[in-house]
């Protein structure tokens, strides 16, 4: 159905995207001609390198990997939006790609008009949209708004309408990029169900997701991309396990972050992360209710004004549990660097349920410059030992422990 052979995609990086001005090109031409100046040599990165895979009809394949690992690039190549630098692909069947929700939607047009516009641009014949129209509206649940301009819709409603159009595309192959991560919970469930139903219909689906649970439950196969290279592909459970093993060191251990995959401009970088106890002692185990100190080591090449440190905590299956920033916590840091240092994040009374969690780090500034972003760089395990010094084990499976009091009123005489 889909055959991909040693597909590679290269992007130039040091000139930004290939946007230039005519004026610059003309000036550049003359300065080369007259002054003999050489243009800056370009640097390239491989967004995808030598990717081969085969997906047969009726399969639902999840693509997992860190941000920037080439997942979206692969989908874009398969949907013909960008051309590969080298390699070949063969796709048999009609392809519909869903890289965003509400493709081609326009605020001023009514829901009805948008359904036709979006449906046709996504590859459906107008007659087919008309035939499916009632179903699309019903699925999105926007019946009474259908002749109102989209600008009067809530964002949830237009999102639902967008997914509904996509869900009714009659293609043989559907390429989906992280779209089910949006929308309210009820609707997410509906989307996941629809994707589940696709299995029966015999449609081939390729979908990118950070929701590892969804990949494991819905897919018949999985591909793990890392830095543009296929690291593993096969049964979802095994691929996800392999992928998760790279999420970081074991609980409590120091983690050197100098050699890991990262994004960002690099003026300052995380060099390590440590998990400590309240008095900054090394800890062997972390239990729910303890105070956990996460020490973030950094090294700055230049002075960074107004640094903002951020940390995200995810469950094993990719659910974002919490996100903390120095900025959001009301902490304004003084400039850092050049040089190295560390910052401690104290989490008193850690109310996470037993289980494995992983963290992503970011070092940014208020002007939205990303100095360093390291995804899933370390993990820590919360022990199933008791809370509040009680020796009563907690059951794992939940995400958090609610701070609680039990108050009983005894009616017995």
């Amino acid at each position, binding site marked *: 159905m889909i055959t991909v052979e040693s597909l590679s995609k290269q992007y130039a990086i040091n000139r930004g995207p290939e946007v230039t001005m005519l004026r610059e090109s003309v000036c550049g031409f003359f300065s080369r001609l007259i002054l003999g100046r050489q243009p800056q040599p370009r640097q390239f990165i491989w967004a995808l390198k030598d990717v081969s895979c085969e997906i047969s009809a009726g399969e639902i394949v999840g693509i997992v990997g860190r941000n920037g690992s080439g997942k979206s690039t692969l989908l874009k190549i398969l949907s013909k939006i960008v*051309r590969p630098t080298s390699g070949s692909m063969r796709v048999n069947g009609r392809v519909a790609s869903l890289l*965003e929700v509400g493709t*081609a939607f326009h605020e001023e047009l009514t829901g009805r008009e948008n359904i036709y516009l979006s449906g046709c641009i996504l*590859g459906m014949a107008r007659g087919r949209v008309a035939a499916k129209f009632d179903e699309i509206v019903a699925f999105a649940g926007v019946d009474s708004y259908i002749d109102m301009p989209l600008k009067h819709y809530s964002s949830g409603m237009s999102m639902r309408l967008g997914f509904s159009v996509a869900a009714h595309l009659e293609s043989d192959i559907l390429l989906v990029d992280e779209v089910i991560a949006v929308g309210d919970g009820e609707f997410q469930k509906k989307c996941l169900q629809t994707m589940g139903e696709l299995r029966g219909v015999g449609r081939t689906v390729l979908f990118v997701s950070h929701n590892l649970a969804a990949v494991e439950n819905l897919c018949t196969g999985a591909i793990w991309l890392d830095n543009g290279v296929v690291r593993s592909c096969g049964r979802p459970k095994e691929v996800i396990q392999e992928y998760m093993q790279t999420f970081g060191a074991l609980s409590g251990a120091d983690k050197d972050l100098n050699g890991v995959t990262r994004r960002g401009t690099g003026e300052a970088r995380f060099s390590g992360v440590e998990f400590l106890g309240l008095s900054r002692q090394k800890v062997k185990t972390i239990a729910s209710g303890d105070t956990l100190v996460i020490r973030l080591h950094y090294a700055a090449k230049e002075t960074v004004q107004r640094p903002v440190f951020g940390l995200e905590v995810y469950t094993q299956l990719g659910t974002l549990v919490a996100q903390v920033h120095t900025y959001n916590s009301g902490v304004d840091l003084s400039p850092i660097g050049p040089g190295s240092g560390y910052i401690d994040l104290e989490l008193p009374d850690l109310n996470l349920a037993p289980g494995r969690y992983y963290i992503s780090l970011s070092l940014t500034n208020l002007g939205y410059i990303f100095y360093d972003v390291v995804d899933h760089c370390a993990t820590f395990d919360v022990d199933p030992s008791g809370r509040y010094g009680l020796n009563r084990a907690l059951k794992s499976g939940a995400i958090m422990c609610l701070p609680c009091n039990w108050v009983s009123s005894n009616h017995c005489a």
Partner: protein
Amino acid sequence: MKYWQWVAEGWMHREIYYLLAWRDVRLRYKQTVLGVFWAVLQPFLTMLLFSIVFGRIVNIGSDGIPYAIFYYAALLPWIYFSSTVTQSSLSLVNNARLVTKVYFPRSALPIAPALSGMVDLGIGTIILIVMMAYYGLHPTAKLFLWPVLVIMLACLSCTIGMVLSALNVRYRDVKHVVPFLLQLWLFATPIVYPANMIPEYLRFYMDLNPLTGIVAAFRTVCVPQQHTDWASLGFSAVVILLLLFVSVGYFSKAEQSFGDVL
């Protein structure tokens, strides 16, 4: 992609072309208070202005055609051409989100304005017919040439629009060049002056501009006693065909990197 494959793919997805054009029309008439009047007002007021400035003040001859008809018949195709080219040259950049999120024949974006412009052109034509009746000009069999001229005009607009839109993706300052280019083009075309005022030694160069033949023909169609310059018109048709081949060739090459650059 092979040349004919490219054309065939566009034809297969022709619904998208109509739909994008329809979207343009919907939006234009939905968002403006004046609505249809806008389509009528623009050429009409320009015609009045030209009649006063060039007709009464500068006193350029109009070949014996009433000034109103003389200017209106030339301004209709010109306004269609210039607004189509302006819109299509921006179409790819303005719809960058669409281009980077879904695959469809990219030429639909620069070609759609040429289709949606037909609505305004049609309304303008009705006004023209009313004006002809007012001046006692009876339509002759030459009126059948009108659709042919419109098709030639649309092809020319698509050609220029496609090239400029693709260039605009590559070089973002092309959009500043377009208004200037159109201004030059306005005066290089016999719009404010009649075609027969062109001196003989410039004739050939003026005819290289395909708009020359088209605009002159638009005028002669309206006036029974005027003769259409078939040679000039035929030459325009050949130039347009050549340009069409070149621009499709360029566009189909350039579109391969749209997804990366936008």
